[in-house]
């Protein structure tokens, strides 16, 4: 008989002996009494109340999850660095731009709002707004469309810009009638 066979036999014999020992093991009697008591208690509680309790627990869990999510979002917002440029005077548009859009055609409050500091920049920390197209009415809603514009087109408007790329990424302020009101572009 090989050593392996002996080991196998020993293991099988030990397993049988252990199974035999375990065959007599029973759960202590107090467990049954406790379970039956819990069963009675469970059955005494009306189903509607159980359902209501379950609903309350679920509602509380949902609310807690919502509060945690809200807190996490707020915390993330607080931690995200927001770059704000110091208020400064926008770059002077060229004579061409002045001819296209006379400054007198814009309501003073709108012009002041546009010339104020801009928090979101398309391409870099320093950018400016050039007023083009038709006049902007007071309180008019504008949309911002980000697009690439040929450098030559900007040059035609009299806007000179540093850089060597053929196109420049700009934000176009489009009025309610679909006509561009201004360009926001990096310096």
């Amino acid at each position, binding site marked *: 008989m090989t050593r392996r066979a002996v080991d196998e036999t020993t293991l099988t014999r030990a397993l049988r002996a252990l*199974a035999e020992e375990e065959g007599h093991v029973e759960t202590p009697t107090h467990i049954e009494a406790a379970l039956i008591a819990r069963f009675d208690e469970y059955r005494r509680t009306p189903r509607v109340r159980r359902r209501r309790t379950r609903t309350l627990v679920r509602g509380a869990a949902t609310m807690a999850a919502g509060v945690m999510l809200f807190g996490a979002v707020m915390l993330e917002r607080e931690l995200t660095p927001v770059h704000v440029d110091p208020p400064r005077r926008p770059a002077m548009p060229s004579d061409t731009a002045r001819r296209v859009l006379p400054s007198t055609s814009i309501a003073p409050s709108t012009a002041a709002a546009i010339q104020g500091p801009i928090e979101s920049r398309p391409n870099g920390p320093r950018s400016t707004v050039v007023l083009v197209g038709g006049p902007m009415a007071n309180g008019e809603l504008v949309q911002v469309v980000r697009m690439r514009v040929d450098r030559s087109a900007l040059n035609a408007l009299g806007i000179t810009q540093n850089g060597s790329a053929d196109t420049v990424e700009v934000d176009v302020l489009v009025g309610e009638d679909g006509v561009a009101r201004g360009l926001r572009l990096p310096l």
Partner: protein
Amino acid sequence: MREESAGADSDLMRRTAAGDRDAFAALYRRHQALVFRFARLMIGSAEAAEDVVQEVFLGLMRGASRYDPARSTLTTYLYGAARHQVRRRLLRDRLFVSIDDTAHDPCGGNPGGTAADDLSRQRDVRDLRRAILSLPPRYREIVVLCELQDVSYADAAQAIGCAVGTVRSRLHRARQLLTQKMQRARACATPARATVRCEV
């Protein structure tokens, strides 16, 4: 026989779901031992096994109306629930409780054997308990189910949620590991003879 038992279980479950206290008690008496033994062999502690039994039967009480006899037998269902509870406990505790020596049956020896045989047998069983507890849970549960609880491979596979072939291969590997562990235990138990130099 098995169909009769399954039918009786289904009937008891239906009555339990309807709120029949006696049916629940009968279910408990029929199946408590297998859950308790499984948990005790898996965890190595009688107290922890009692908790598992309570959790399993409380779950059975709450979910009696959802039990579907077409999906599995009640025994398989209970083994699955017990396995889930045992795994949760093992994950929570992250340690194995020492073997519960007080629960050993002192009269469990072979009545026909000699005292030396009995001693050797008891030592083998003790080593085997330790070896089983030191197995990884996926091997341990297979040994407990198939070798110690006489559960068929098909039922074990259903309770564990794997293929029958997986049960076979795990059992084979588990037996190899147990053999190695028992050899090591025997080697440690044998006093080593060493030459000692006497200094005068």
